[in-house]
């Protein structure tokens, strides 16, 4: 029983990290039909640069803030110079963003060396409580809390602000919003920056969670985020949150009980959803 509970908490924490990555991906796709294969690279950049700042300043919080800023900056650069020229051409989009993923991953190897980097938690987060046989690791709860906060923040943004109103309207009917005199490209730029900083935040939080980071995490977690977005339905934040929890918890249980098929299960889940409900479980 304790094992099950521990696994569930692990799964929810992993799910929170995946959600941070998937939320940006799903918004970007929902709004502009751009599937950003390079999204995972932002996760890896967030992890590496966040950790670098963390070790330089010796402050975890500054590291997190740094990761968010760097994610946002990168998002702005990518959107402005690389994604915008290929908006209308789906084929080029897929190819360019995939190329970007490779280049950005290789750049990390150039900056930080090809070996993996180990990351240590700050002391105040490196504790755990024993609660009736269940070990509660403080950092996992911290990650879950941030995941919930970001989810609530994005929901607030979407439901209560003018920007969110335009984004939701844009997901429904882009042409109509443009016809009403709103510069949807600008809105998309904001959404892209927001999504990129969330991905970088996810990467930074992931770094001490796993203890080591390597340049391949961008690809690995990028694929997980895709699976989540497909299962949850493109453009749906709630769907992504639910699917991220599902993938996270399922992954935790599978790695514990049948490790050899852990990755395959997620793939099969996505396969099944795409076959029988291509719009996703929560998509329209």
């Amino acid at each position: 029983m304790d094992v099950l509970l521990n696994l569930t908490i692990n799964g929810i924490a992993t799910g929170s990290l995946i959600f941070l990555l998937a939320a940006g991906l799903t918004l970007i796709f929902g709004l502009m039909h751009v599937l950003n294969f390079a999204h995972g690279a932002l996760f890896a950049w967030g992890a590496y640069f966040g950790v670098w700042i963390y070790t330089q300043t010796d402050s975890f919080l500054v590291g997190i803030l740094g990761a968010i800023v760097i994610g946002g900056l990168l998002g702005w650069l990518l959107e402005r110079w690389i994604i915008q020229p290929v908006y209308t051409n789906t084929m080029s989009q897929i190819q360019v963003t995939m190329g970007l993923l490779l280049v950005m991953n290789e750049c990390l190897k150039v900056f930080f060396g090809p070996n993996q980097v180990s990351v240590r938690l700050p002391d105040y987060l490196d504790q755990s409580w024993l609660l009736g046989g269940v070990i509660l690791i403080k950092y996992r709860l911290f990650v879950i809390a941030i995941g919930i906060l970001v989810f609530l923040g994005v929901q607030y943004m979407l439901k209560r602000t003018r920007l969110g109103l335009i984004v939701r309207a844009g997901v429904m009917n882009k042409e109509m919003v443009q016809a009403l005199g709103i510069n949807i490209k600008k809105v998309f730029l904001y959404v892209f920056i927001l999504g990129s900083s969330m991905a970088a935040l996810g990467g930074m939080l992931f770094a001490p969670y796993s203890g080591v980071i390597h340049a391949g995490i961008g690809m690995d977690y990028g694929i997980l985020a895709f699976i989540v977005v497909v299962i949850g339905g493109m453009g749906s934040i709630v769907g992504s949150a639910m699917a991220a929890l599902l993938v996270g918890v399922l992954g935790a249980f599978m790695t514990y009980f049948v490790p050899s098929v852990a990755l395959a299960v997620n793939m099969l889940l996505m396969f099944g959803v795409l076959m029988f409900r291509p719009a996703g479980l929560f998509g329209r």
Partner: protein
Amino acid sequence: MKTNWLVSSRLWMGMAAILLIGFPFVSDSRSALILLTQIFIYAVFAMSYDILLGYTGIISFGHAMFFGIGAYTTAIFLHRWDHTMLAFLVSLLVVLVLTGIVSYLIGVMTLRLKSHFYAMLTLAVAGLFLVLAEKWRDLTKGSDGFTFYIPDVLKDRTTLYFASFFFMIIMFFLLKRFTDSPTGKVLQAIRENEQRTESLGYQILHYKIIASVVAGLAAGMSGSMYAITLRFVNTAVFGTNVTLDALLMTIVGGVGTLFGSIVGSALILLVHAGLTDLAKIHWIFERWMIFFGALYILAVMFFPQGVVGMLRQWKEKWKRA
């Protein structure tokens, strides 16, 4: 109109072919011979990718799975059964059957999806094959891979060179025949305008599946030949990099022109070999993926017609002038 002999592409191709046939007799550089052999084999793989990307207009990120199936099947046959020509030929047959079945099944299940989802799903399926190759240790020896003996006939590098060269020529003409066939024309129509082709009464899905199977078969065979040249196989043959290499070669050479894939394969592998040499001078050249990736992004954005496409444009201008 009298055609100018300078712009006759057949003449150039013929001259290139004669040079390549003569090459082993004038040069005794072993490394150049091996490099050219690899170029021929990768050219077939890139051509098979061009059937999907250039002629049908679909992007797959999982094309490496057919390459890997081919490489592993041949390797396992030669390793487990016998290293004779018979075993090799039987393995080629098995490769055709396997890649045919896999590409058909994947096509039936995934080609209905929009391009984004198809790209993603093929990435996922290729990932599954990579995991399978890593976990099925009894058969594949995991990620370490294994070496094996090849048939005595093919052991000589020069023989292998000619075998690969004629393999490429034969595949080029077969695929050329396929793309010029009525089916090939329908595929190009799908690339240009899917809705219109459908309203003309063609079953889009059927044609896309045909393209997927043809590409799968050709890629599987190139995988077999690749394993033969290396005499070694490991899980790298299923890697995403393999697919991306094909994508890069096709784009740099020129999409939708089978010949472009050959040019692209030569360019990319030569540049790769050059950069690997440069790595001795400066370590940054070890990270050649950066150069390729950047080249690739720039090619997609600013140079979508590729080398062969550009030459054709010049040729048109020349004729008009």
